[in-house]
C-alpha cells in the first residue's frame, strides 16, 4: 500500500461519518438507525470499485469471450440452435456493455484520439448511427480478397467494428434485404464462407478491446507500471479528477447520453434489445449506489449517515420513474425520468457527499 493510499485510509478512518442518533426520548418511535451506523466515504468508494466496477469490467470481458466462442461454435456447426445461442450471447454482451458504459473512464477512455469505447460502441461518440457503414463493410469483406486476419480487423476504424458490426453479422443477412429470419441468416453463412471469417474476426477484435480494458484496470494502465485500480483508489488520475467525482460525472454523462441521443430508439435496432440494455444500466446505477451483498459501506449509506435521507429518496424516486417508463415502453417518459436521475447525479448525490464537481465555465464567457 502506498503512502498516499495509507494516508487516504487514515483520513477515511479519522473522518468516520457517525450515524444519526436522536436524543429525543419522547413517545415518538425511535428513529431508525442506519444498518451500518459508522460508514466511511473512502470505504464506500473502495467497495464500489472492488465490488461493482471491476466486476463489471471482468464480466464484459467474459461475455465477449463467450460471444467469440459462440461464433466459433456456430461456424463449426451452423444451425438454428447455434445461431440462437450466439444471438443470446450477443444480447448478454450488449447488456453488460450498457452496465460498463457507466464507467467510461480509465482504460475505456485513455486515448483522446482513439478511445477504446468507440471501438466497442460507435454510437457513443456523438450519437451517429453507423449501421449502413458496417453493412457495407461486411458486404465488402465477404466479397473481397483481403486476408481477414487479426491485423486486418485491428486496423479497422471505430465505425466498422464493435457491437454494432457484430449485431449486423449475427442477426441479419448481408444481402440488401437484410433478412433477420434465422434460416436466411444461416444460409447467408453457408453460401459465403468468408462471412464466418469476418464474424470471427469481429468477435476476436471485440475480445481484444475488452481484454485491454480489463488489463488496464487490473494489471497496468498505459505505461504507469500500476493498475488503473490502484491509481484510481490513490487519487492519482492524470487529469486531476477526484475518484468519486470521476464516478459521478461518468454516470451523469451516460445518463445524459441516453437522453440526448434517444438511445432507446437508436441503439440495437436489429436485435431490438435497447430496452433491456437500459434496464440493465439502471440496475447498475442502483448497484453502484447501494452496493451488493459484500458491501458494508455504500454511497447511499454515506448519504443516509450524514442525514441526507431526502436525497436518497429523490434518487430512488427517479429510478422508480425510470423503471415505470421502461415497463410501459414509454420513450418520452423514459427521457424525462432519465433527466431526473441525471440531475440527481449533478446535485443531490454530490451535495450529499460534499463533493465539489467544479464550476465548469460553460455559460458563455
Amino acid at each position, binding site marked *: 500500500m502506498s503512502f498516499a493510499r495509507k494516508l487516504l485510509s487514515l483520513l477515511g478512518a479519522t473522518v468516520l461519518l457517525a450515524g444519526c442518533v436522536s436524543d429525543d426520548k419522547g413517545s415518538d418511535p425511535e428513529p431508525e438507525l442506519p444498518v451500518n451506523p459508522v460508514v466511511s466515504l473512502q470505504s464506500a468508494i473502495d467497495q464500489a470499485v472492488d465490488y461493482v466496477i471491476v466486476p463489471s469490467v471482468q464480466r464484459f470481458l467474459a461475455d465477449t469471450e463467450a460471444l467469440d466462442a459462440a461464433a466459433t461454435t456456430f461456424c463449426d456447426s451452423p444451425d438454428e440452435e447455434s445461431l440462437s445461442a450466439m444471438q443470446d450471447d450477443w444480447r448478454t454482451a450488449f447488456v453488460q456493455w450498457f452496465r460498463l458504459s457507466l464507467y467510461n473512464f480509465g482504460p475505456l477512455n485513455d486515448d483522446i484520439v482513439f478511445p477504446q469505447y468507440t471501438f466497442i460502441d460507435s454510437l457513443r461518440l456523438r450519437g451517429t448511427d453507423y449501421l449502413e457503414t458496417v453493412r457495407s463493410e461486411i458486404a465488402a469483406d465477404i466479397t473481397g480478397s483481403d486476408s481477414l486476419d487479426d491485423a486486418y480487423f485491428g486496423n479497422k476504424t471505430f465505425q466498422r467494428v464493435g457491437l454494432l458490426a457484430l449485431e449486423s453479422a449475427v442477426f441479419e443477412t448481408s444481402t440488401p434485404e437484410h433478412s433477420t429470419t434465422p434460416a436466411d441468416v444461416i444460409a447467408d453463412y453457408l453460401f459465403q464462407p468468408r462471412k464466418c471469417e469476418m464474424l470471427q474476426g469481429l468477435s476476436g477484435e471485440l475480445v481484444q478491446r475488452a481484454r485491454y480494458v480489463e488489463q488496464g484496470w487490473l494489471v497496468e494502465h498505459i505505461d504507469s507500471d500500476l493498475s488503473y485500480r490502484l491509481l484510481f483508489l490513490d487519487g492519482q488520475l492524470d*487529469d*486531476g479528477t477526484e475518484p468519486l467525482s470521476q464516478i459521478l460525472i461518468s454516470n451523469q454523462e451516460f445518463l445524459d447520453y441516453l437522453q440526448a441521443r434517444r438511445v432507446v430508439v437508436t441503439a440495437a435496432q436489429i436485435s431490438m434489445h435497447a430496452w433491456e440494455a437500459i434496464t440493465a444500466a439502471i440496475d447498475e446505477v442502483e448497484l453502484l449506489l447501494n452496493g451488493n451483498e459484500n458491501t458494508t459501506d455504500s454511497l447511499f449509506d454515506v448519504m443516509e449517515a450524514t442525514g441526507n435521507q431526502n436525497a436518497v429518496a429523490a434518487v430512488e424516486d427517479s429510478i422508480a420513474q425510470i423503471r415505470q417508463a421502461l415497463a410501459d415502453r414509454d420513450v418520452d417518459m423514459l427521457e424525462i425520468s432519465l433527466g431526473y436521475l441525471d440531475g440527481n447525479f449533478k446535485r443531490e448525490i454530490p451535495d450529499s457527499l460534499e463533493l465539489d464537481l*467544479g*464550476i*465548469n465555465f460553460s455559460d458563455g*464567457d
Partner: protein
Amino acid sequence: MSKTTLSLLLQRRHLLAGLGGGLLMAAMPGFARQAVTGTERWVSAQGDSLDNFGLGWVEPGKAIGNSTFTGFRGHAVLQHARRASSVVTVSRRPGTRALEVDLATGEIVGQFACSPGRHLFGHGCFSLDGAVFYTTEADIAAGQGRVVVRDADSYAVLDDWPSHGVGPHEIRLLPDGKTLVVANSGILTRPDSGRKPLNLATMRSSLSYIDAASGALLDDYQVAESKSSIRHLDVAADGTVAFAMQLQREATGHERTVPLAGIHRPAEQLTLLNAPAAIADSLQDYIGSVAVCDDSRIAGFASPRGNLAVFWNLDSGEMAGYHRLRDVCGIAVSSPSRAFVLSNSFGELRELDAVSLKERRERRIKLPGYRWDNHLLVTHPV
C-alpha cells in the same frame, strides 16, 4: 485550507474593508509583503459565491495562496502597465466594477464602475505607454458594444467608442501600439434576462480592428460558421492574433464538427485550426481562453467543457499537442520558464514546457478552497 476557512478569512477581510473605508487589507495568514522586483505571480479571479469572490495569486513553486476579497465575480486580470506590482481585475458580464490590487500588499488601490446603463464583459487592456485603460462594455439600452477609454491612473472616462459589433468580449492591443483588436461575440444579452442569448438567429460575430487613438474601424473579419462566437484572443509579438470561439450549437441546426480555434496573420484572411475529429468533438463547442507563447510560436486553447487544453503551432497551423485537466480554463505563458501555465476551478495549477508541451509534474500546485475562474495572468517580473 478548507473552503469554509477560506470563506471566513475572506469575510474577515470584507469586515476589515468596512472598517478601512473602502480599501481592503490583505489579512490572510501566510500572506507575505515582499519586494515585487523579480517576482513572477500567477493571478486569477477566484471563488464561487458572493461571500468569497476575490482575486487570488501564488508564486510559482510555492503552494501558498494569497487572496483579496473583491465582492464580485471577476473574469480577466491585467497587469497594470505603469505599476508593475498592480493588477486590474474586471468583473464578469454583467458586472459593472473593476478593481486595481497591489499584489505586494494585497490592498485595493484603485477602482471604477461603469456609467449607468452599461456593463462590463470582464476584459480590458492597456495602451502601449500605460496611460490608458480600455474596456469592452455594453450599452444595454441600445444593445450595442462599446470600447470605453479610461485614464489608467484615475480611471476617469476619456472617450467612448463603438466596438463595431454586439457583445464585445476580449480586447488586446497589437504590437504596433496603434491598433486594438476586439472579439465581438455577436451575442446580445441583457442583465434583466440573465445570460440568455437574445439574437441567435441574427448574431454576427467579428474580429474587429480598431484605431486605438480614434476608435475608427480599420478592418473586420468573420468566420464562415455564422453561429461561431469569437470571444477570446491573444496576440503574438509579430501581430498574429490567435482567437477562440464558442459555438451556439442549438442555433446551427446541424451536428457537424466546427473548428473553434483560429489565427489571423496580418494582411491575411482568417485561418481556422483543425484537429482530429475526436479532439475537436471533445472540446464540446466551447473554448474559454487562449494564450500565445512567442518563444515556441505555439498557441494554447483551454476548453473547460472538454477538460482539455489543445495547442497549435502558429506558423504551420498544425496541432502540437494537448493536455487533459478537469475543468481547465485559465491559460497563460510564463516567459522566464518558457512554459504554459494552466488553472482550473479546483484550485490546481500546472506548468507545461512551452516547446515539448510535457507537464512539469514536480511544479504542480493545488490550493484547497481556491476556485480559479476563467482566466489566468502570469505577471512579468520587472
